[in-house]
């Protein structure tokens, strides 16, 4: 059990981690790099199976044990099955019932639902800004003033154009400086974590520990 659950995944991570690294930096292996890229959709395909299995297990348990939540889990299951079946049949078709059913589900259910979830942010941000954005110290005042200028600047016109120019400057100078620092930090962090995973020092992805 220890071999299948720990040693083999660890060995595969080390081998493929080093291999991926070598393929990237040795120009002679460029052909193999393309093969590696082609393998990615296969791995992605398996991740969908794992995702569906995990979702099924989670909601099946909920249907059995939590009567108050049962309805939502049933809706999730029904949506999953309906979209999968209609998509599998309708997507490759040129025309016909399933094609138009799939298109309607996509355009009038899936797209508005996703856009709605994203637009809910506006409501949460408004409430959070109203409650939490307070002038308590000089640094929070600075943040508040910058926020005001950028918000006004994005919609500036006529006599308020000064905010537009100030907003452009904030986005092009302080924001870029901060973002560059952040990106360098993130890059170094990713590198350090990748090295730790490849060398087997970081093993939390295997579960436990």
């Amino acid at each position, binding site marked *: 059990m220890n071999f299948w659950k720990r040693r083999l995944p660890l060995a595969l991570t080390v081998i493929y981690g080093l291999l991926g690294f070598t393929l990237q930096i040795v120009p002679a292996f460029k052909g193999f*790099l*393309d093969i590696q*890229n*082609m393998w*990615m*959709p296969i791995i*992605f395909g398996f991740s969908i199976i794992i995702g569906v299995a995990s979702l099924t297990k989670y909601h099946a348990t909920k249907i059995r044990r939590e009567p108050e939540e049962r309805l939502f889990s049933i809706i999730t299951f029904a949506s999953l099955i309906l979209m999968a079946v209609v998509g599998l049949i309708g997507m490759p078709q*040129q025309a016909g019932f399933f094609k138009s059913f799939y*298109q309607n589900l*996509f*355009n009038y259910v*899936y*797209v508005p*639902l*996703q*856009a709605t*979830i*994203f*637009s809910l942010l*506006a*409501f949460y*941000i*408004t*409430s959070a*800004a*109203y*409650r939490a*954005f*307070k*002038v*308590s110290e000089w640094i929070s005042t600075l943040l*508040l003033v910058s*926020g*005001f200028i950028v*918000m*006004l600047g*994005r*919609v*500036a*016109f006529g006599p308020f*154009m000064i905010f*537009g120019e100030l907003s*452009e400057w904030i*986005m*092009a100078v302080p*924001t*870029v400086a901060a*973002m*560059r620092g952040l*990106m360098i930090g993130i890059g170094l962090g990713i590198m350090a974590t990748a090295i730790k995973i490849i060398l087997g020092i970081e093993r939390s992805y295997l579960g436990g520990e």
Partner: protein
Amino acid sequence: MAENKEQKQKDKWYVQIMSIKKPYVYLGMFLVVIIPFLANLKIKTYETDLVKEVYQKVEKIHEYNLNHPDKKKGVLIGFDYGPSTTPECDPIAYSVFRHLFLRDIPIVVWAPYGPYLELADSRLNRIAKEYKANYGKDYVFMGLAYPATAYMVSTSSDLRPVFNTDYYGNDVYDLKILDRFNNYDNFGLVITISGTAMPEYWLRYANSLYNQEVSVGTTAVNAAKFYPYANSGQFTGMIAGLKGAAEYEQKVTRLEKELIGKDIKPYLRNLYTEKNRSKFNKEYFNPKFNEGEIRTAMLRRHQAGRGMSSQFGAHIYVIILIIIGNIGYFFKRKAEKDRTKRRRGV
């Protein structure tokens, strides 16, 4: 006694303005967004250098094509956004497609994920229809390019072998447009319209490895991440959020009026006649405009401008709420300080 004090404290005006209930805050937000939108208000926005850069680059490709009709350059579009970011990215895509079709620049489009395909297909054909563009000659939709990096690398030599067929199942070697526009040498520009980190991949592969100029259209949230690249010149301009879309939309609308005329409705109405209708394959779009479609096409022409009016309302509303919250906070602190002083004085 203590309860009385607490109640008195709650009744103070500055405490009350600090604790407006969430449903009222949300209702206010809903109204300031929906009223300008339904009233069809439009805001004319100022144009920034980053958006002008993208526009001018497309214009330069057009000029080049006029001077070199046998060595035309095309534009490769990465349709890198999904349903969640359509409110911001759709107006960008519409404006960019309109500009390219107006200037008769060949377009090759692909999408990196499954859920983006349906969107790309509908948006591209919708705009192609408005300019009588011929599928396979003026534009092509290659379909799914997953993993996108492999396709970006392959486009350095020829993108056809990795696709085999386009989105509709046509053999890539039967599509006339792909005879020339199949690698970076013949693309004057790549435009990635994205709500994700995909523009960074375009930068790493198409720009860094093959020196391909890349422009980006993205959501306002993502824009901060891409400003360093746009500032350093790695991205050839950037269309950021609804504001960027409104800027590009304004520019393209001006161009359209210059090329087609002030009134677009009669142009759309008379675009397809019985004679020319047979030239277009109905698989991609129906070569005919009904009144409803004309109305939608007209609304689409200032979609970002309309969105800006809602954005204006929302931004002002948030600023007012923050000011109200801070006035309450200021007087509350003042009252607390006064009480502490009085207690010490006693």
